[in-house]
């Protein structure tokens, strides 16, 4: 099999908690990401889902090397980038880009759309030929469904959905092979979400892009992803092909997440089983021992409270971290 575009092995990102008045010293750490391994192939979408504090966004930032990992290894296009500094990362920035949740906060309000989209080209010295530069911007705008005639406007003149398209055009400017999308549609109105989701799907088909699609909306993630990883308190608890995950989720947390999401059909809803899991996600500063989900798991037994379950391969790309599964399997 060909080398994956992105390979993450045992990634750890721990943030120090500092205490003390004069001499700041570390009194603990938040294990935001604690041993995540995943791969993304060319042209593929990996969905990353989980609730707040599960580490999905931190994983995205670490892959982009906007954060320095505490441990583990990140390889992109065959290069180990785990310890790369800014200068070393620079040429790679062309190949991996990011689209953010907030289309309001992530665009400089004083810059025209033309300059926002063109900025990455200028930064990377690809704007020497004025004519080609203008053509490129017009073509990028058309690609994401914006009229090139709007190039001289400022971000505030656009709606949320249009601003997200500007963010996507900007990410596309350098022709990346991977885009990390962090909640890219969750700030948008329902009727606009579908427009932007379709832009992502179309671009992938046309340009062969790979996405890491980070979102909390399981229906959106299901729609765009080839494979999906479910995270809970810094770890992947289950990873599988899209249809496998939704048809036969193995981890009790995956099952709970799916049961909690209502389906937009009253007839289906009336007949659905509603196994609602109790409690809330525990604090990442003091994760429970053993399996972090045991405090909420309806099936937890003694072993779950003491021993951390490893991610076990079930075949066909599905892996699950659960003692229950091992006991039954």
């Amino acid at each position, binding site marked *: 099999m060909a080398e994956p575009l992105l390979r993450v092995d045992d990634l750890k990102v721990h943030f120090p908690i500092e205490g003390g008045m004069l001499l700041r010293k570390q009194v603990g750490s938040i294990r935001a990401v604690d041993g995540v391994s995943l791969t993304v192939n060319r042209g593929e979408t990996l969905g990353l889902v989980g*609730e*707040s504090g599960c580490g999905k966004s931190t994983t995205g930032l670490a892959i982009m090397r906007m954060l320095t990992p505490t441990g583990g290894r990140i390889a992109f296009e065959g290069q180990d980038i785990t310890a790369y500094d800014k200068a070393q990362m620079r040429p790679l920035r062309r190949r991996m880009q990011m689209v953010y949740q907030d289309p309001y906060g992530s665009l400089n309000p004083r810059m025209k759309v033309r300059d926002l989209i063109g900025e990455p080209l200028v930064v990377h010295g690809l704007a020497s030929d004025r004519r080609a530069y203008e053509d490129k911007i017009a073509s990028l705008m058309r690609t994401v469904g914006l009229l090139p005639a709007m190039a001289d406007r400022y971000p505030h003149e656009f*709606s949320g*959905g*249009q601003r997200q398209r500007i963010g996507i055009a900007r990410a596309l400017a350098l022709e990346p092979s991977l885009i990390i999308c962090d909640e890219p549609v969750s700030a948008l*109105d*329902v*009727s*606009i*979400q*579908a*427009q932007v*989701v*379709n832009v992502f*799907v179309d671009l992938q088909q046309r340009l062969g892009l790979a996405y890491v699609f980070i979102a*909390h909306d*399981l*229906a*959106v993630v*299901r*729609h765009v992803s080839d494979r999906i990883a479910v995270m809970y308190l810094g770890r992947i608890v289950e990873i599988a092909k*899209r*249809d496998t995950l*939704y048809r036969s989720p193995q981890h009790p947390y995956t099952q*709970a*997440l*799916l*049961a*909690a*999401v*209502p*389906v*937009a*059909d*009253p*007839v*289906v*809803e009336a007949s659905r089983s*509603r196994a*609602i*899991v*109790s409690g*809330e*996600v525990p604090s990442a500063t003091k994760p429970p021992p053993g399996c972090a989900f045991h405090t909420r798991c309806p099936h937890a037994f003694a072993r779950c409270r003491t021993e951390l379950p490893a991610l076990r391969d079930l075949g066909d790309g599905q892996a699950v971290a659960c003692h229950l599964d091992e006991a039954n399997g």
Partner: protein
Amino acid sequence: MNAPVKPELSGTDEARGGAPLLSVRDLVTRFRTDRGAVTAVDHVSFDVRAGETLAIVGESGSGKSVTALSILRLIPDPPGSIESGQILFDGQDLLGLSEAEIRAVRGNRIAMIFQEPMSSLNPALTVGMQVGEPIHQHRGAPWAKVLRQARDLLGRVRMSDPDARVGAYPHQFSGGMRQRAMIAMALACDPQLIIADEPTTALDVTVQAQILDLLQDLAKRANSALILITHDLGVVARYADRVVVMYAGRVVETAPARELYARPRHPYTRGLMASVPRLDGDTAKRLVPIEGQPPDLSALPPGCAFAPRCQEATETCRLSRPPLRAVGTRHQVACTLEN
């Protein structure tokens, strides 16, 4: 527990089929802005019956939240004002009440739950004092008794260890616990109507399910009416008996939930349903978005507000505004094409 006796409603038989508990008629709420006057709620009418869950669904700017605030007369004036209409609650027009009279209704017979529990709770007061405050205000109960009742209320919203929680402060609570406390506060005076404005949007999905199940269960048990304001069609499908769909400040369609999902009649309702990916949907199919941009309330077209985005719009749609018309039992649509 010995809850205060509820004022007699209009009788169960009537409550089921007859007089609604709340009847909003031709409500108009306007705001003055830099860009001129904006009609946020534009001749909105709907009914809610005792024991019923009504969902008001719409996107940002649809007027769903302003409608809720108008019912309780919580529109900041200036810049806003309720221009006309009637809000008949249990036979009485809330718009005709004095400021003191409406205060006696708020938190007592009608309670409201907001999206962000952290900004709705006072960080400097204990949770028990805030949960019990409506009892103190409306029933004049002494604080010792209020705190005992607050403890019972926290138990009713299934908070673990209510004895300890009553003396705790909001920052010691998680998001889900804060929203439980808000529900406890809303229930304090056994309201006939609870209005919940996006009560779980800020919460994780597993907690959202817990909170909405709890809210509906408690409302149904007390035969209270629940108005659930949301943008989430899944939440509507799971919890609503009846649905009001709003667009640009207007009601475009209203129907019983099953009827609405089985036979959506307004192109906007149909568009919303086609644009949302479903957990059980066909992933090979493209989503069908609603083209165009959300409406600009300061520059609405003269006719149907949805016409600029509607694939089926005709000249008539662009020129004259369609009234809400019955197309079935309790099913109404504001669309010229439905004639």
